């Protein structure tokens, strides 16, 4: 079991990928959602600190309403934090986001965490009737409004991207008086400074390349927080991974899964397909946490040290991974990787 007094937080993260069942067929969307729920229950039992579910609106992923799935998880778990990873605030309504997550907070006894972001995909824009031209202003205005709503007092606000509010009181209020909120950032310095300005903790989505390059972003976050007169919060990292008993088994399983998923997404963006060399680079020195528990633990510990992070969320079950391998991966992560990372970070 993972000790609760640790200063570090370890999470798992899913977008609700359609997994491969024992009969070799892909899960349905409904089955994929129920699978994530079962995995969250397991993660809670094993002492994993958090589960984040990302909002997507694409055929590969079953989760478009993270907080609905999290609500299901809430009533069956005890300790695990229930986070979105991320909630695409730009194409959502800050008032409703607060209402849904404060409801989740109630159901879970104060375990809800909203991770606000702009997302790495943009399909929510046409889906909900927003214009990509307004990408910047939508996020800028909505995070400003959301920060006000979080004070849990009547809100007066006006802007361009939604109807004005005058002394609007929003319910349910949380028991703690503050809904836990973070900002997910992919590498835009402007977004880092924005998180610092609103005094939100920072989650860095590092999905490629050497995590060391994000050390500068952590420093920027600290410096900007100080300039705004805020105390910087601990920083978290979110990256994809795959853990198996041995390096060899993990590499063999991960290569086709990651290639298939990244190539499919990459194709719509005009990226060339992944080469074995690209995969090897990401595994060796980049941001794919693939390997045995020992290999992955060392890689996580290095990334957390070099960035100065106190939280690590691993995206698991990437692509059409087998249901049994997903379960095994969560067990290895909880029972072997997390304790070893803590040890490597000097925590016994």
């Amino acid at each position: 079991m993972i000790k609760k007094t640790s200063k570090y937080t370890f999470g798992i993260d899913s977008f609700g990928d359609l997994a491969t069942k024992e009969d070799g067929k892909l899960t349905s969307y409904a089955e994929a959602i129920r699978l994530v729920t079962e995995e969250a229950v397991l993660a809670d039992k094993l002492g994993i600190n958090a589960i984040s579910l990302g909002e997507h609106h694409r055929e590969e992923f079953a989760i478009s309403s993270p907080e609905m799935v999290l609500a299901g998880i809430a009533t069956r778990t005890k300790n695990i934090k229930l986070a979105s990873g991320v909630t695409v605030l730009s194409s959502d309504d800050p008032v409703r986001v607060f209402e849904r997550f404060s409801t989740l907070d109630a159901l879970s006894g104060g375990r809800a965490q909203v991770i606000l972001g702009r997302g790495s995909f943009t399909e929510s824009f046409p889906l909900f009737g927003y214009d990509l031209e307004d990408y910047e202003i939508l996020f800028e205005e909505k995070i400003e409004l959301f920060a006000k709503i979080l004070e849990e007092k009547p809100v007066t606000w006006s802007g361009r991207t939604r109807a004005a509010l005058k002394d609007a009181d929003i319910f349910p209020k949380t028991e703690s008086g503050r809904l836990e909120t973070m900002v997910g950032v992919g590498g835009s310095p402007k977004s880092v400074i924005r998180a610092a300005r609103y005094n939100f903790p920072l989650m860095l989505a590092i999905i490629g390349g050497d995590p060391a390059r994000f050390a500068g972003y952590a420093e920027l976050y600290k410096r900007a927080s100080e300039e705004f007169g805020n105390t910087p919060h601990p920083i978290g990292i979110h990256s994809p991974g795959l853990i198996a008993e041995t390096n060899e088994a993990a590499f063999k399983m991960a290569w086709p899964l990651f290639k298939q998923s990244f190539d499919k997404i990459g194709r719509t963006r005009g990226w060339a397909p992944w080469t074995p060399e690209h995969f090897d680079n990401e595994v060796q020195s980049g941001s794919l946490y693939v390997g045995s528990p020992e290999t992955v633990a060392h890689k996580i510990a290095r990334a957390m040290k070099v960035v100065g992070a106190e939280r690590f969320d691993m995206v698991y079950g990437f692509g059409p991974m087998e249901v049994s391998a997903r379960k095994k991966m969560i067990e290895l992560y909880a029972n072997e990787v997390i304790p070893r990372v803590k040890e490597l970070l000097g925590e016994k």
Partner: protein
Amino acid sequence: MIESVGILGAGKLGLVLARLALKAGFKVNIAGSGSPDEISLSMSVLAPGAVAMTQADVIKQSDVIILALPLGKYKTIAVDGLDDKLVIDAMNYWWEVDGIRPDLDDVHKSTSEIIRDFLPTNRVVKAFSHMGYHDLLDGSRPANSSDRKAIALAGDNRDDVALVEEFIDKFGFDPVYIGALQEGIRLQPGSNLFGANPTKKELLELLNHFSDSDLGKRLA
């Protein structure tokens, strides 16, 4: 002789190019979409030494200008003072940022030709456009390193191309000239080179198989 590098665009790509230019010993001037104040803190932490200034000042004070803005915003470039400047176009059409823009997705005209036609200068060279920004940052190596990566470039004027070749080399990559600016289309999204992180040999090989890529098929 290039001594100072001006970068328009202070996002992920602009930042990486600023760091590479500083590492190569150039003086670096950079402008974002807003006032210099908005990016000065980011620059002091992430690219210490790069000087945040207005677009107009960047253009005035730099020997070469690198365009690293979202392509869809190219009409916001302050063209005054660009008359005889050498410009490196590192931009790509990226629909998720630019929105759906058929004008930027013309198989008969490379986006760098659109830029050349818009700017008062004819001295436009396409480079640093096909490699992902973190591969750019992580991949810079001294000359003759066995794992040195390559950057393709396209341009009409041989003297300018030579300047940019030298420039790419100083940034830590092997330059590979692929032809006139219109050939730059072979580096755009949908090509087999776009997003690849090749050595010189691999890059030449990829060019040979361009016609098999999604973009190659559209062009056929």
